[in-house]
C-alpha cells in the first residue's frame, strides 16, 4: 500500500469492543490481569512499560519507516538518549555529525561525557572524515541529515557501510525529512530517530520522540532503555500525534513547495547574502540531497547582508513568521540558532562547522506562500 494510505491506517484497527474508528486514549496507569497465570496475556501491565495508545503510534511509525519495531519517548531528546544509552557504555566511543541539533551536542558533551563516553564530531558530508574518526571502541554512529541548522547533508548509505565495517550501529536522525521523503533503514541504517514534535505532530501541539529499528535486537535494546529510564510518551501525546501523521504527506509536500519558493525568492533578493536550501541548485550537496531523498523538506536558512545586526532587525520586524524554537509545524517559524537552538554549542565549534552568527533559520509552514514571501519582503525592506 502507498504511503498516504499507510499514514492513515497503519497501526490502527477499529476498537473491538465498540467499533470506535480511532484508537481510544488509554489514559490509565495500570491494567487488570485476568489471573496470576495469565499475567501479560493482554499485552499490557503498566503504562511505563507499554500503553495501547502509544503502541498504536509505535506500530504506525514502524510501518512508515519500514522497520520492525519502534519505541516512543517523551521528547526527541529522550529518543536520542534512548539510542545512546542502549548502545554506549563507559569507555565506548561514538561518531556524531558535526552539525546537529544543539541539544544532541549538549547531551554528548555535557551529560554522557560524565559517564565516560567519548565523542567525535565528524563532517558527515565527507565519508572519509567519518571513516577517519573510527576507533577500536566506536560503537555508535549518529547522523543528522539534513543537519540542523546548516542543512549539511550526509551520505546515509556510505556512513552505514563504515559503521558496518566498524561493527557499530548507525542511527539517523530523520526528523527533518520524515520517512515520507527519506528512508534511512532502506539505505542501510539500523535506526531512525525522530522528534515527533516536528512534522509527525505538525501542529505545535505536543513534544515527543521515537526510535524505529530495523531489527528486533536493536528494537529490544531501545525498548529496554525506554522502560528502564522511563522517559516515555503520554497517551494523550500519542493520540494527537496519531492524528497528525494522517496528513503528513500533504503537509510535507506543501511545506516543501513553500520552502522552495521562499528559497528562490531570497536567493534573488539584493539584500540577502546567501541562502541554503537543499532544493536549490546552488546548494553544495544538491546532488546528494536529490539522490537520497524524494523531497527537500521545509527547512532553510539565509544570511542578510549586514550579518547579525541586520538579521536581528529582520527577525524582530517580520510578521506572520513567529520568532520561536521548534520547526516543522503548520505555523511558519523563524529562529536565530546562535542565541536559541544552538546556544549551548561553543563559539569556536559553531565557527568550525559553519553556524555563523547571522544565520537566520526558517521553518516554512502551511500559510499561503505569497503571504510568507510578502512578510519576508517587508521585513527585508526595513533592514
Amino acid at each position, binding site marked *: 500500500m502507498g504511503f498516504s494510505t499507510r499514514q492513515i491506517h497503519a497501526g490502527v484497527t477499529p*476498537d473491538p469492543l465498540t*467499533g470506535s474508528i480511532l484508537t481510544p*486514549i488509554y489514559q*490509565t496507569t495500570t491494567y487488570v490481569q485476568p489471573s496470576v497465570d495469565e499475567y501479560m496475556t493482554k499485552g499490557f501491565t503498566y503504562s511505563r512499560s507499554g500503553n495501547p495508545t502509544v503502541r498504536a503510534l509505535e506500530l504506525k511509525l514502524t510501518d512508515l519507516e519500514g522497520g520492525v519495531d519502534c519505541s516512543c519517548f517523551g521528547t526527541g531528546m529522550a529518543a536520542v538518549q534512548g539510542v545512546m544509552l542502549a548502545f554506549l557504555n563507559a569507555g565506548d566511543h561514538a561518531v556524531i555529525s558535526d552539525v546537529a541539533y544543539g541539544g544532541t551536542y549538549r547531551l554528548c558533551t555535557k551529560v554522557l561525557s560524565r559517564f565516560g563516553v567519548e565523542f567525535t564530531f565528524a563532517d558527515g558530508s565527507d565519508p572519509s572524515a567519518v571513516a577517519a574518526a573510527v576507533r577500536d571502541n566506536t560503537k555508535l554512529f549518529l547522523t543528522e541529515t539534513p543537519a540542523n541548522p546548516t542543512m549539511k547533508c550526509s551520505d546515509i548509505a556510505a556512513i552505514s557501510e563504515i559503521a558496518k565495517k566498524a561493527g557499530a550501529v548507525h542511527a539517523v536522525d530523520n526528523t527533518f525529512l520524515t520517512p515520507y521523503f527519506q528512508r534511512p533503514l532502506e539505505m542501510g541504517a539500523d535506526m531512525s530517530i525522530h522528534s515527533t514534535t516536528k512534522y509527525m505532530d505538525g501542529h505545535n501541539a505536543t513534544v515527543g520522540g521515537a526510535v524505529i529499528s530495523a531489527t528486533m535486537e536493536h528494537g529490544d535494546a531501545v525498548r529496554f532503555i525506554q522502560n528502564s529510564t522511563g522517559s516515555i510518551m503520554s497517551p494523550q501525546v500519542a493520540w494527537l500525534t496519531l492524528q497528525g501523521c494522517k496528513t503528513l504527506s500533504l503537509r510535507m509536500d506543501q511545506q516543501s513547495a513553500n520552502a522552495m519558493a521562499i528559497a528562490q525568492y531570497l536567493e534573488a533578493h539584493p539584500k540577502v547574502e546567501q541562502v541554503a536550501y537543499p532544493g536549490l541548485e546552488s546548494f553544495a550537496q544538491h546532488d546528494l540531497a536529490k539522490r537520497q531523498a524524494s523531497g527537500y523538506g521545509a527547512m532553510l536558512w539565509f544570511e542578510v547582508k549586514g550579518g547579525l545586526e541586520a538579521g536581528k532587525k529582520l527577525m524582530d520586524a517580520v510578521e506572520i513568521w513567529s520568532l520561536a524554537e521548534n520547526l516543522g509545524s503548520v505555523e511558519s517559524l523563524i529562529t536565530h540558532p546562535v542565541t536559541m537552538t544552538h546556544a549551548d554549542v561553543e563559539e569556536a565549534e559553531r565557527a568550525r562547522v559553519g553556524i555563523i552568527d547571522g544565520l537566520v533559520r526558517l521553518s516554512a509552514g502551511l500559510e499561503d506562500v505569497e503571504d510568507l514571501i510578502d512578510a519576508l519582503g517587508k521585513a527585508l525592506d526595513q533592514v
Partner: protein
Amino acid sequence: MSHFYHFDTLSLHAGQTVDSEFGARATPIYQTTSYVFPDTDTAASIFNLERGGHAYSRITNPTVGVLEQRIAALEGGSAAVCTASGMAATFCAITAILGQGDHIVASSQMYGGNISLMKNTLPRFGITTTFVDPTDVEGFHAALQDNTRLVYGELIGNPGLDILDLEGVAAICAENHIPFMVDATFNTPYLCRCFDYGVNITIHSVTKWMGGHGAAIGGVVIDGGNFDWGASDKYPTITDDYAPFSGINLWEEFGPSAYAMRIRAEAMRDIGPTMSPMNAFLLLQGIETLSLRMDKHLANTKVMLEYLSGHEQVSWVSHPDLSAHRSHALAKKYLPKGAGSIVSFGVKGGRDAGKAFIENVELASHLANVGDSKTLIIHPATTTHSRIDADALVAAGISDDMIRLSVGLEDVADIQADFETGFRAAKKIANS
C-alpha cells in the same frame, strides 16, 4: 451493581466495566466520532434503537456512557444523559416533554441562567413559566394551570439559599400527574438524593461540585424512573409512537428510562449538545473524590460561617445551616450532612465596600462559577443575575451588598487571612 454498593464505592466503580481488550484500569477516552459496524443489520438495529451500541459520538460515546451510568447510580435514577453544559441539560430536560402552549411552574430562586431560559427564551417557543416563592409550597399548587406540564426548582436556591420543601411540592405534583424536576447542582447526590423525596427528574451542572476542579463544563439529566408517563395523555413525546425511529413507542419499550431515551433520541440526535469524551474523563476523575471534597467543603463552610458571623465588617450572613435562616428546619431534613458550601453575606458599607472587598482578596478568585476546589467570590447583582430586572432581583433574594462565596478546599485559615485583607479595604471605604 448499583444496588449493592455504598456511595463512595459507586463513585469509583459504577458504570465502568474494566476494558475487556487490555484491562486498562482507567476508563479509556474514546476520542472518536464514529464506530465501525460489524454488518449492515447491526447498524440498522442500532439506528432504530432496537439494540444498544454506538453509532456516532453526538448521540452516544463509551467514555461519556461511563459517566452517565455513574451519575445515574449515585443519584439512584434509572438512566442519565450527559450534555455539553448545565444549561444544555436544563434545555433538553424541559423540551423533551414540553412544547408550544405548555406551562411551567418554577421557583423564583434559581440560577440566573435558568430564570433567563424560562423568562426570555422558552416563551419564544410558546412555553411560559409562572415563578413562585420557593418557601411557599401552596404557591406551587395555586400556580398550576390546565396546561402545566412541569414543576421546576432548586433544592438550595441560588443565591438566596432557601431550601425547597421537596416532599411538599412532590405531593402536589403527584396529585396532578406532573413531573417534578430539580436542579440538584448545589447539593449533589452526596448531600441529598432527591428521588428519595418524590422528585422525578434531576439535572446538574456537573461543572460544579460533581467535577469539582473547574476543569470541564458539563451537564446531566437524570431520569428518576418513578414517573408514570402513561397515567395521562399530557406527555405525547413519551407515550405516542415516535415516527423518526420506525414508530417506536418509548414508554412501552423503555418504561422507567423512557424519558432519558427521548432526550437521547431527540435532543442528542437533532440538537446535539454533546459532552466531549475528554470532559467526561475529567469529570469521572472528579467524581471519584466527590464525597471527600464535599466533606471538606462542608467543614470549611462551617468554620467560615462562624468567622463571618462574628466579623465586625459583615452586616449579615446567610446559610441554611445557621439557625436564624428561615429554611433551617428544611435544611436539617433534606441536607443532614450540611446545606452546601455556598454562603452569602453583606459587607458593611454597601455596594462600594463590597466591590473593595472583592478587589482586595487574592486567594479567593473573582469569577462566575461555583463548586470549584478553589474558593470563589462574586457580586451577583452585577454579574450572574445582571440580566434580570430589579423586581426579579428582590424576588430572587439578591441585595446590592451581597457577596456570594463558594467555599473551597484550601486551608481554612488561609481563606480567613485572605478575607481579612479584603475586609480591611472594605472598612476604609465604609468609614470614608
